[in-house]
């Protein structure tokens, strides 16, 4: 099974980099530019892992992950927050939503792939 990953970021550069890294690892990637769009896409599709930015226009990471968790199919889906934010309030909010990790930008694409693979329980080498 090829993992299907939802990547949410308002920055085109970041979306493209993360996409290239994930696709490079042989995974499928769907992109969204904000939480709202991501929520719509999450309803239509089914994702094995979600990578989301925190501070985005229209709907930020908090609103998105809340909406995501409200859907039964995403109750236990691993969610990674990928952001430059470091404040404790945001982190605590994410923790309450059972987020698997808070990854601080700048992100090392290869390191991210390893981390994601670990969460998915697969060996990235294969």
């Amino acid at each position, binding site marked *: 099974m090829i993992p299907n990953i939802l990547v949410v970021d308002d920055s085109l550069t970041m979306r*493209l980099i993360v996409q290239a890294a994930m696709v490079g690892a042989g995974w499928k990637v769907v992109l969204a530019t904000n939480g709202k769009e991501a929520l719509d896409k999450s309803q239509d599709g089914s994702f094995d892992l979600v990578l989301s930015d925190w501070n985005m226009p229209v709907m930020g990471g908090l*609103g998105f992950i809340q909406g995501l968790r409200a859907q039964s199919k995403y109750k236990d889906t691993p969610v990674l927050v990928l952001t430059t934010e470091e404040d404790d309030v945001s982190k605590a909010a994410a923790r309450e939503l059972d987020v698997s990790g808070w990854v601080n930008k700048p992100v090392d*694409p290869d390191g991210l792939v390893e981390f994601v693979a670990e969460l998915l329980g697969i060996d990235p080498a294969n």
Partner: protein
Amino acid sequence: MSGLDLSQFYETFFDEADELLAQMEQLLLELDAQAPDIEQLNAIFRAAHSIKGGAATFGTFQKLAETTHLLENLLDAIRRGDMALRADMVDIFLETKDVLKSQLDAYRASEEPDEAVYERICAVLRQLAEEDGAHGAAPAAASAAPAREETMHMPAASATGTSDKPTCVRIRDVSGKDAQSLLEEMGNLGTVLHSESKSGGLSVWMQTTCSVADIEAVCCFIVDADQLRITHEAAPASAASDVVSQFEAAASSFTPPDAPAPSAARPAGNVAAPRPQKAATPAAAPADKESTSIRVGVEKVDQIINLVGELVITQAMLTQTASTLDPVVHDRLLNGLEQLERNARDLQESVMSIRMMPMDYVFSRFPRVVRDLASKMGKQIELETHGRATELDKSLIERIIDPLTHLVRNSLDHGIETPDKRIAADKDPVGKLTMSAQHHGGNIVIQVTDDGAGLNRERILKKAMEQGIPISENMPDEEVWQLIFAPGFSTAEKITDVSGRGVGMDVVRRNIQDMGGHVQLSSRTGQGTTTRIVLPLTLAILDGMSVRVGVETFILPLNHVTESMQPTEDQIYTVAGDERVLHVRGEYLPLVEMHRAFAVGDAQQDPTQAIAVIMQAEDKRFALLVDHLVGQHQVVVKNLEANYRKVPGISAATIMGDGSVALIVDVFALARANREKWSSAAETVLN
């Protein structure tokens, strides 16, 4: 693992950062330092945040990453309310934006940004952070460090009190009409903070004193209890900062569950309900823009325009060929051709509109220019822009920036007075500069108006005399104003570093003329000056009059043609050797014989058997002698230089319906080439 080559994303990052910086500048200019709008602050922060994130990820743009990092920290403290925003901070932020832009440009050119500038701006930003003490600048390491990943070990859900959180009511499988009623009911129970609808479900966050049971009881009038779920939780981030009185907004923007993208999640902006804070829309706009537009290279668009041009020509050729056919026999073919003509015309119009860009692209850079210049000159100036949505061809819009900047500088420097002078003149101390754009037929009219001192007639005349420009004391004002377009003309009492540095109004006029337009000035002493630029909407098609000279066909730009006539013997005077002038209603016009100007054989030699077309170029009029008029056409302009070489007196070429090439006459060039001959010729006649 094979490392991902990040350099392939540089271009995307540069473009994105460019856009973000422009956005940041616009937002900073709109920001009210006394009462900053939280949405605007967030959007500014987000721009800095995105640039930093990208720059740091690449690892190669250290200076850019560090500068944005410092800026981001300050913005973060301000938006959190840890630091109060001051007007001078906005200035520093704007300056930082300029530095970031220059850093970005340097990286784009594969150069290292200026070290001194970088050190200085960082010092300024660090000092700002220390001054307030609230948020010391974080160490540079944060942005320079390689990837740091912190996996959080999730503790059991923290036991924060739930009572202070809003009540969240979630209802699944609800119709649009029921959702509307539910929202209204909940509005009666408390204050609706935020609502969202998605895939048939409705979520409402509200502040209420009612118990869960009460809410359930009310909702059960409309839906079943098992569709309901009521919890206490924070509203989504985007709604958290939102103001009250959102109920109306949420209700009015509510869309049925099966409709995509409810707009309630985006606070205000396009919602009808009035909002105390201004302009939340700019923050939301870029996201919308991204999903509804695509980036296409200009050369691709130009290629389409060229092809459509060819199509229109082919269609014209077909129509011309078919015009000899018997309409009764070939009824269906002719109908089809008519249809083709309409379609081709529509297609051409649609394709041309792709190249069109709103004037906003130009106007948006002026608030900054005006702000900077005004503070430099100790003047108070309010800038107003109208017609930002007016569209103009991309190639023209880029070329209009410099002339407009020059006009604005002139208005600010020489036009609008200092506040004390204005008060003395019984005027509002705040000067007003208005820029507007509007369509007028096939033209766009761009105006720059100031309410300053106006042009000084005496000073212009004096200066013109010094420069040896022929003048007379009783010249009408319009002609006096035209004098300032003379090369090297400047009436400024002293040359300032803002304007009056050699580049004069003559360059402005030359630039505008090269774009196929013209400039007009009007001014009233003590009341201000208006500069009016008239430009064709596009350079790719032209309304022309085709004329025949010998075997050749020429196209005269229709907007320069004023009238045509067959001259009589007594209207033609020969002066100064073989130069001729045409006497029309008391006016002596230089007569330019096309067959002589362009050396065409077989042309009509006798002027009384030919047609004189009277042309208006700038302030001068002249008559062009042609054999006969053929008709009016919209022609597709083909660049002659690209396909052949520059020909004096010819601006471009086009392909006619019969497939032959016709040359488009450069009216200004003809006027310039004949100018000296004219004045001497006209004087000879008059004396």
